[in-house]
């Protein structure tokens, strides 16, 4: 089931331009913290790629680079002409706007929606809120919501953008299993309908297998791609199905090795995992 990167890549680069392409991308923070080390990865159009990796291995960094929020220290990133939407690891809602207004702002900027009226936007925002099971809470302010509710608003806002590429950083981390399942279905539906390209960071291996066309494993600091798993299970998949569980446990094992390799030095005081 595990297939090394080399074998996989050629089969994907067969003709059409990928939606996102990272070519030997490295990122150094400050003077000496190497967060990403020559990462090469591409996401095809309409592909759903899940990113797995230990805490602090550089997943968020990678998403920031792809989104153009930060500059790579070396290497090249190409996102073509597609519009990019992103869900941050934190909800990052605007505290001065109501929940609905947060989403409306995204709708307003979206070029295709420029001509929409205010009322249309409000209705669309209400629909999106219904979709994330927050119907009727549009008038609340972000601080009046629970952690998971905020995360769902952020999801609604990202979906409101109507982008071609969707970057998601642990979007369902603060949700209970059931709400998560429901949102998996919604996300999959939208991904299909809109033919989105998705780069999806998660710590939940089952979630990755449930959603992804491909699961990419990053090593710990510095982050590099160590493994890619194409997921060929037929959709719709269920998180609690045996196949998903099986595949997930195989990936988990590989991940476990990786995390352990990194976690080891921490037991010995003095030897640190940073590039010092």
């Amino acid at each position, binding site marked *: 089931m595990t297939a090394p990167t080399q074998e996989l890549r050629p089969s994907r680069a067969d003709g059409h331009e990928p939606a996102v392409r990272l070519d030997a991308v490295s990122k150094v923070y400050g003077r000496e913290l190497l967060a990403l080390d020559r990462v090469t990865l591409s996401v095809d159009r309409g592909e759903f790629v899940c990113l797995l990796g230990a805490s602090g291995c550089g997943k968020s960094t990678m998403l920031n680079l792809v989104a153009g*929020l930060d500059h790579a220290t070396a290497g090249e990133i190409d996102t073509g002409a597609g519009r990019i939407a992103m869900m941050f690891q934190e909800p990052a*809602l605007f*505290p001065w*706007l109501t929940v609905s207004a947060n989403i409306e*702002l995204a709708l307003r*900027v979206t070029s295709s929606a420029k001509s929409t009226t205010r009322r249309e936007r409000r209705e669309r925002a209400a629909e999106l809120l219904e979709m994330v099971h927050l119907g009727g809470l549009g008038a609340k302010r972000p601080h009046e919501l629970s952690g998971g509710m905020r995360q769902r608003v952020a999801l609604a806002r990202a979906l409101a*953008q109507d982008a071609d590429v969707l970057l998601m950083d642990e979007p369902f981390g603060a949700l209970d299993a059931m709400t998560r399942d429901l949102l998996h279905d919604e996300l999959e539906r939208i991904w299909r309908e809109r033919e989105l390209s998705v780069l999806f960071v998660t710590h939940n291996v089952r979630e990755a297998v449930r959603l992804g066309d491909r699961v990419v494993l990053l090593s710990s600091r510095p982050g590099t791609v160590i493994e890619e798993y194409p997921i060929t299970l037929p959709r719709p998949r269920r998180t609690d199905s045996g196949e998903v569980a099986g595949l997930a446990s195989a990936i988990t094992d590989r991940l476990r090795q990786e995390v352990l390799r990194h976690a080891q030095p921490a037991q010995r005081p003095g030897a640190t995992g940073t590039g010092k």
Partner: protein
Amino acid sequence: MTADLSQHIAGLDALELSHRERRSVAARIWARTWPMFSAILLVLAIWEVVVLTGWRPEYVFPGPVTVLGELWNRLGEAEFYDAVAVTIRRAITGFAIAVLVGLVIGAAVSRVRPLRAAFGSLITGLQTMPSIAWFPLAILLFKLSESAILFVVVLGAAPSIANGLIAGVDYTPPILLRAGHILGLRRLALYRHVILPASLPSFLSGLKQGWAFAWRSLMAGELLVIIAHQTSIGEQLDNARELSDAPGLMAMMIVILVIGIVVDMCFGAADNALRRRWGLDQRVG
């Protein structure tokens, strides 16, 4: 369930909420005002005691009775209200222009890097310039007109407002900037939808400081020229001083204090509204 729920809440209401409600009608106003009243009484008492000790002769340091009497006299004169009206009109006009100028300058300087390097520090430099230094230029540009006074007021207040905005921009949480950027907001749109609202608290406090600068510059500026028998607070204050009219001076100081306090309360109300909306009023315990 919904019916049950609202019933339950109604029950809680009876316990707690309505209690709180009742408090909010009379007692809450009282809770907000008694400290002020006692503070005023305290100040008056101390003042009277100092006067009674005979520390300084009454004509140099008059007691509260004299001063309040003087204030009462002035309150009885139509001229006083003219003065207040003239000064407040000038203050509001000047402040409004200063807000506009400050906003534009602050916005430009905070976001355009070369502008900031070129003029950023100049703003504080201008802020430290005493009003009298501008008088010759004001008269040169605007002759002896109301505009000359406004010029001094704007030069006094605008830097403060710009600085408030710049500080707000500088302390906008990067994550919100990133969120705005991802939403496709750029330049002006980013400014309008993210940076400006995020800077609001700091901008508000800049406005407050700007008001103080505007008012002080106005007090000085009103001495620059007295146009066709128009009296003003600044002029009355200075007259009282020129005439060594201690009770008059103190009466005018009280007037200025009261106006300052009223304005502060307006800013305070805006500030509280803002904090409530942002959820910053949740205190611990």
